[in-house]
């Protein structure tokens, strides 16, 4: 019987299965297991994993911590954007604010040093997209994402917003400088 007619045997679940199908189902199932355990294995063996560390936080509180960091580590001012540049010591807690339509402030980091990076949004959803290395994160208001990042390339990086956040979305670009 074809696929648009009732099957010839009403009890279709008792049929024996032919060899080629059995082989393919087995291969596909095992491949699924390989992919599943690769994700788990990478948590131990791989260097690129998102931490599970996140906190609820109010925008005011997050902004206050960011300003506190800027007060401590400010190293200059970017003329074009009028944004403060901060140079925090390695290993420190650094804060990045996403808001319409800025990534604030400009971060100056040292190559091969680790930083505890805190990111949150003050208003709506934003997308953190570090270019050209291409690391992409979803940034929520009210949630503080914390991850330990170790820039291993020197240069000038851009943070492009890749979650639609209103009419100024395409002008929302931030800066990370790695020396």
């Amino acid at each position, binding site marked *: 019987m074809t696929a648009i*007619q009732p099957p010839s045997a009403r009890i279709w679940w008792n049929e024996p299965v032919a060899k080629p199908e059995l082989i*393919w189902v087995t291969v596909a199932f095992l491949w699924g297991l390989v992919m*599943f355990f690769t994700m788990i294995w990478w948590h131990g063996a791989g260097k690129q994993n998102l931490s599970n560390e*996140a906190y609820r936080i109010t925008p005011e509180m997050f902004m206050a911590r960011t300003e506190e960091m800027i007060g401590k580590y400010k190293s200059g001012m970017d003329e074009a954007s009028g944004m403060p540049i901060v140079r925090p010591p390695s290993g420190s807690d650094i804060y990045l604010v996403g808001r319409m339509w800025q990534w604030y402030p400009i971060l100056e980091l040292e190559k091969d040093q680790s930083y505890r990076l805190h990111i949150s949004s003050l208003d709506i959803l934003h997308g953190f997209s570090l270019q050209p290395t291409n690391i992409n*994160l979803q940034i929520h208001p009210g949630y503080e994402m914390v991850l330990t990042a170790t820039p291993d390339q020197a240069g000038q990086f851009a943070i492009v917003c890749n979650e639609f956040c209103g009419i100024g979305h395409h002008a929302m670009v931030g800066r990370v400088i790695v020396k």
Partner: protein
Amino acid sequence: MAQQFPHRVCPATGLKIDLRAEKLIKVNAVAAVVFLAIGGLFGLGVALTRWPAIHLLPADWFYLALTAHGLDVLLVWVIFFEMAVLYFASAVLLNSRLATPNWAWAAFWLMLIGALITNVAVLQGQSTVMFTSYVPMKAAPHFYLGIILFAVGALIGCFVFLGTLVVAREEKTYQGSIPLVTFGAMTAALIAIFTIASGAIILIPTMLWSAGIISHIDSLMYRTVWWAMGHSSQQINVSAHVAIWYAVAAVLLGAKPLSEKVCRTGFVLYILFLQLASAHHLLADPGLSSEWKVFNTSYAMYLAVLGSMIHGMTVPGSIETAQRRRGYNNGLFEWLRKAPWDNPAFSGVFLSLIIFGFLGGISGVVVGTEQLNLIMHNTMYVPGHFHATVVGGTTLAFMAITYLLIPLIFQRQLILKKWAQWQPYLFGLGVVGLSLFQMGAGTLGVPRRHWDMTLADAALKHEFPGAAYMMMGLNGISAIIATIGGIMFIVVVVGSILKGAPVAAAPAKKEAAPAPVGAAIGQYGSEAHVAIPGTLVFVGVFFVSFVLYYFVNWKYLSEVWPLR
């Protein structure tokens, strides 16, 4: 005892066709095609704006067009068409009357009114929030209301379908179990009920929030529950278009499922595991644990992917078997070479199978892998993936079966047969281009949902690589090709419905059952088994591509900044 109901007898199959079901299939399919046309044109505007050399629309219109594009094709076109598929797979294939046709009409009107309300809300300009309408970005209350009405209508349609299964069984309109295609449609209906429930859970409070009655909606909760609707609704599509693959192969070639057990198990895996896919969208979000992400994003150890890989073998396998029975038995691939490639229903389905499997399926697993998502989340890679699944897979399959529905349900012959013949190839080519170039741009970091990749208005500059500009240009050209293919489809369909010569009560073209030929035949399951070496090569190539591409992406991931 079967009730009397107004019907005609299909000359091709001898099935009774409930005239009320037939009319409902027609109106739902026509509404679907209208929204495909509208949504497709918005899509062209989006692609031509993202082509940096053209940059067609101003920013506000671009974001508005992108919102409308997503809604009209990702939601309205596919769900309307799926209603037609549900009524066809129940009343027509089961030789039964449709349960509660008045409720089915209520469903249709609710869906139509809902779709119109939401479109009006978007065009008014106060609801440019994208298809996903992530809070706390706010749309007008009637934006959400329209989607809710649409969803309620679709829910009613699902229950009419399930009711028809009960009626057909009670009235013994068929013998034994329901056909495989109906089983696939039932899978789609069950997933649809889950999907719509999720949609109601999140969109009703969001509408109240938009109207000022509720003070706060959590953005992470919104994304989690919204995607239980947003991604699951694409799983309705998968179930429906896989059912259509089987249906078209059965109608055109008399293809039989290799093993009913294996094919149906594939659908059961969909029912059990596809709904976990909300996690695919949350892999780069804060506040969810890795354990949760790994389990859900893999559909519980890739069991739903297993379902798709099963269909990826059994559909071409059933075609190969049918063709070999007809005597196309030379070598590995004579069965494929001698397939009816000039029939748009066949070519559409086969291209849909290839594009969905090779481009959509593989890229979907890769982008949905917990850590790999880091290098793709919200880049153009994501639309690249889902244009392969929803446009290349679902839309092309729906177009293909439309070429069968026109003679069978609308009882018209196709006009412009040459156009129809070329249409799936042109549309398929456009979609392959869209998908590949979008994915390519995504791996170079180009953001999705973005008006200006030159970032000219930003105070801090960034220059994307030249290759990314080229990709977005080629994406625009692909969109033009796909649009031409889409317009050809709409001209052929609308023209045939309005102007096509009526199908005379054509003598049922019953081909004499071809004598079994060639390979040794043993009775396996429901199908006397013919060897399927061509299909084994086909899935072998697929498997190797899958494994290579998967590990290449881990290599890419290992090159970005260490994060923990």
